């Protein structure tokens, strides 16, 4: 099993979610987060005082998928989240030892 963590532009979220459903990803956890990578923030000016806003709003998706599905899921995110501009975000992949469904204690791929 692989855990996929993707941090994307909020405006691309709906497209990414749809593409993931199409390749068979059934569940995900989504949070609204703030952060920055290489993208610099923007400046705001209030009555002549300048403020630099460097933490920008992003959407973070987390999902755990069977190994065979991981590539398709990553491709789906790449295709839909990319605008080609700085600030498009990142994808992180990690190996997951096990998964347990709390309701009936199923384990492994069956629990996903």
């Amino acid at each position, binding site marked *: 099993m692989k855990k996929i963590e993707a941090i994307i532009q909020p405006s691309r979220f709906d497209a990414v979610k749809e593409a993931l459903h199409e390749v068979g990803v059934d569940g995900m956890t989504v949070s609204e987060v703030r952060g920055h990578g290489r993208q610099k923030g923007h400046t*705001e*000016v*209030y*009555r*002549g*005082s300048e*403020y*630099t806003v460097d933490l920008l709003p992003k959407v973070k998706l987390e999902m755990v998928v069977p190994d065979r599905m991981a590539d398709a899921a990553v491709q789906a995110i790449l295709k839909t989240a990319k605008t080609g501009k700085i600030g498009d975000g990142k994808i992180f992949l990690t190996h997951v030892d096990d998964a347990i469904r709390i309701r009936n204690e199923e384990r492994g791929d069956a629990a996903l």
Partner: protein
Amino acid sequence: MRRLFLGLLLGTLLISGLTAAPACAQSTDSQGAAAGSASSSASLQEQVGKLQQQVADARSSGDNAWMLVCAALVLMMTGPGLALFYGGLVRKKNVLGTMMQSFILLAIVTVLWALFGYSLVFHSGTRFIGNLGYLFLHGVGAAPNPDYAATIPQETFMVYQLMFAIITPALITGAFAERMKFSAMVVFMILWTLLVYDPMAHMVWGKGGLLNATLGGVIPTLDFAGGTVVHITSGVSALVCALYLGKRLGYPHEPMPPHSVVLSFIGACLLWVGWFGFNAGSALAAGSLASSAFVATHFAAAAAALGWSAAEWLRNGKASVLGAISGAVAGLVAITPAAGFVGPMSALVIGLIAGVLCYLMVAKVKGRFGYDDSLDAFGVHGAGGTVGALLTGVFAVRAVNPIFKDAQGNALAVGLIDGNARQVINQFVGVVMAWVLAIVGTLVILKIVDVLVGLRVREEHEIQGLDLSQHGEEGYNLEV
């Protein structure tokens, strides 16, 4: 319509009365006819008198309706207008504390005004302060006070002027926002109303006041709706407060952007509308002078919004919403002393100058001197009020308001462009008086309050925010 009808009726009766008089003279040979004529002319006179009274009553009810609406409009400027304008400009942990500082003044100043404030300002007394003839509003009722407003009940005049006494101290709260103790602010404001506002208002507007333009002043200063009394006193006191209290923790390194320009936007628009009550209402009647002041007020606000926006656009490459609304307020401040004295084109010029000047005050001058006038009470009200008071001496004309008259009742020149250069000097003296009184008075009061209760909140309370530390509540409980 009613007034026109009564006028026509009165005219007809006067004419019939005049034709009746010669008829009476011609019929002296007949005793009975003469007696009949005399009694009918007496009853005619009685009728004319009654009609004159009805005309006066109609005028009074028209003026009174307008003035009561204006009083309500000026109240709306403080709450919600100023409370929203200032509330949006602070960080969200201080939104309630800031709104409360305006709101509590509605209550405090009203009680002070009822007990003795009105008397200290508007009863005749010394050159500097009124005496206690109207203590507890004694004798202030339905009868007009012809010295100030001959056509409305003095009670209306009293409550209208009260609204000015409320908003003036509320303006100061912008300078010490986000760091003053609520208790200290309450004590400060009680003393400030007593020691700064009441004397200044008496000097400019009270009968026999030093700077009064028509009621026996020594140096006739023009201040239609409160450029010196309201905006200079509050703006300069604000600067003194900002310097005395010191900067907010973290200023200017930590970002302190407004938490909601949307709230400020609503507040500024309410201020603009309320200002018609403030300025046009200062005509104290529903006549043509009110129209003239209304137009001047509106034009200055528009020109100043454009002036500030243009200056900001040139310097930053963008015209901000906060800039546009701040500019409008600056224009309204500057036109306040001039509203009932200047024509519409002069109002545009005054507004434009105020918009650009106040922008430079808050964007350049404040940064250079490094004082933390948090919400720019000095930059907008102190600077705008000063330039407005001085320009009133330049642009006032007798065609708008023939306030100065010679012994024969002919209108004399009023401002510089009208041919009275001296008025600029008089305005300057008025401005200096207001500055000195505000600086000295505020310093003394701050010292007293500092010793009595301490001015600033504790450091951890400042970090926590005024809403929780001073009032035990939060402005936004969005997760609930």
